[in-house]
């Protein structure tokens, strides 16, 4: 399928683990998530289970940030007029 609106040129995506990614976006996301997760883990008070909880929260933050700045590489649409 053609996609003219996307800022990446066509056929730039590779498949990793059953879905398509853009290499630069992937590296960006790996860095963001690793920094937020490990960062939160290390910054947490050294009093178990706090580091783990902080780390999990960090992971979620990294995930949300990545989701906001990276666009999914999927064209999603509903097929209309084919209701049973």
């Amino acid at each position: 399928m053609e996609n003219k609106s996307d800022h990446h040129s066509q056929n730039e995506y590779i498949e990793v683990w059953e879905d398509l990614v853009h290499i630069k976006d992937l590296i960006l996301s790996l860095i963001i998530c690793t920094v937020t997760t490990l960062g939160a883990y290390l910054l947490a008070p050294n009093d178990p289970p706090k580091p783990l909880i902080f780390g999990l929260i960090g992971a979620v933050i990294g995930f949300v940030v990545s989701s906001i700045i990276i666009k999914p590489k999927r064209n999603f649409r509903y097929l209309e007029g084919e209701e049973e």
Partner: protein
Amino acid sequence: MMDMVLIAEMIGASVIGAILYTIIGIAPGTDETAVLAPVTLVLVLSGFEPIVILAFFISAIVAKKLTDSIPVAIAGIPGGVMSAPMVEHAMILKKHGMPELSIRKMASGSVIGTIIAVPMSLLLANLIAPLSGYITEYASQIFLGGAIFLALMTKNRWVALLSILPFAFLIQGLRIFYWEAEIVPADQTVFTSFFLGITIGPVILKLAELLSGKVRKNMPRYGMKDIALKRTPKTKGFPNPFKILTKKEIGTTSLSSVLGVLTFFMSPVGMTIFLGETLTSRIKDPVKKAARAISSMDGLTNAAYISGTLIPLIAIGLPLSPTAIGPGGALFNAPPVFTEENNLHHLLSMTDFIVATVIGSVIAIAITFYITMKYAQEICAFVFRFIPHEAMLGLFFGLVMMLAFMDAGIINIAGVLIVAIVAGLLHRKGVNYGVQFMTLYAAPWLVSLFI
């Protein structure tokens, strides 16, 4: 006797577990261990009542297993490692324009798997309990036997068989190095992060290859993935899994669920692939074959997960199954709260186990099965539109890095990367997760035979 407050807490925990893991289950590529183990660990360490944690955990696995097949059916993207074997069959149904049917069949298979697994696990656990001393003694040998058996079942059986010993040496070699270098105390064994390293192996290998420009140039490139869904009418009332499946499908699903319980100590992924293919190999019609395969595979994964958690917990108190040692690891060992001498096995009575399991599984089925049947499309649409695959990989990668660091500090990040790259290579050569996990469990004993 149990009081009402505790029961209310169990119900609350089960509802939260079901909702949370309904969402997580749909997200593509979420590994069971990676999403269940850390959260359970946090709950255990936070000091919740053991019985409440068990209810939460059971609800979470049932919900996760119900929903992780949804993206498979709709887009051929596995929602978890366990649903990967179903992709092929789901794609056949999708090609014939029946992704909705896929979801219904899979979810119904899950429900049957759960219904069979809960009582059977409780029963089997009671039968095994007297043997627990014996089993504990020969656990390593059982795991090695499992690795050899699964290796012989794969297509590349000689490569798989040959990989067992070197892979065990790699894992145990790293552990011995950590002990010698005093990175890890002698009474502590690095496990979780190696387990995750194996799971994330194929991805890490791919990422490592991206570092080479030559490989990068030759990789197949794609445009945007096009996903189109037909709008389907809403079903009225509460769906009945026994009406969605045909009699034959119920039969095969029940059979595979029973086998899933009996082989609770084997790798669920390996058993799913093996039994799913075996039980359907004689059906000619591709649509019927695919429907039978996905319903029975889903029943089996559910049954294997529940039995793999419950039987070792109730009967033995040691994590003697891949599910117990992976996603359920925190129920057995989460110092200082749970240890091998003081965990759910020792703290809960048989009644406690039954109550927690029934509450957890009934709530998860009620909430998740209902949501799955009614809103599968809407949830998928949301995930496909707004959740980039990069973020999923990033989340997982981040968690693995954290757990690697937690297990043995900064050096273990390198250790986990090595395990992951080797595991990824083996995986590509046809050595499946099952063989690798079994090897991981058998490694300490296997290597001790040589040194």
